[in-house]
């Protein structure tokens, strides 16, 4: 059973556009929701994370929107750049232990 569902599977955005990736979860015990960025041949790198006591968190061009009642959260990448082209994973965890990852979104930013 997929604990965290992620969409879309792939995304193509023009340079300067907004990239939006969505995730949904079922387990209401989850209390930490990170987003990771992964380049080919590399391990995932933490991008930004949020806890369910806030509805939005912004760091530079990256924003997480969190909807606790809908059990959904999303990543928004503003002013997308070709260097943002990578695979993005959402994840969820509780008690800081096991992380459950989404299936990933391959983002391509066209110059």
């Amino acid at each position, binding site marked *: 059973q997929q604990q965290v569902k992620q969409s879309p599977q792939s995304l193509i955005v023009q340079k300067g556009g907004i990239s939006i990736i969505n995730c949904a979860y079922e387990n209401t015990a989850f209390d930490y929701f990170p987003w990771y960025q992964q380049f080919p041949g590399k*391990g995932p790198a*933490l991008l930004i994370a949020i806890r369910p006591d806030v509805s939005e968190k912004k760091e530079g061009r990256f924003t997480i929107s969190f909807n606790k009642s809908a059990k959904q959260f999303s990543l928004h990448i503003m002013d997308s750049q070709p260097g943002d082209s990578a695979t993005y994973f959402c994840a969820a965890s509780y008690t800081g232990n*096991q*992380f459950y990852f989404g299936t990933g979104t391959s983002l391509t930013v066209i110059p």
Partner: protein
Amino acid sequence: DAGVTQSPTHLIKTRGQHVTLRCSPISGHKSVSWYQQVLGQGPQFIFQYYEKEERGRGNFPDRFSARQFPNYSSELNVNALLLGDSALYLCASSQEQDIQYFGAGTRLSVL
């Protein structure tokens, strides 16, 4: 400071063999987690160790085992390798319970 280091970077084994993967966490981090990432999928949790004690185990067969040493480094062992064990094996270390930092992984190919 050095990040999470994993060795070897690549490994080729044949079915039935045994493999040992190694991980050195970031200095000061006492928790190490292991994940399996099959091509095109998100990482799947295998084990978490904290202060040399197993804190969590994912849905993997008993062929998979791990341990953590007094210096907080860790080994993942897989016995009786199957073709389906071919994957990128990721190690993550953490100091706080939530923020996990990943290494670049070990690419295991089973022939």
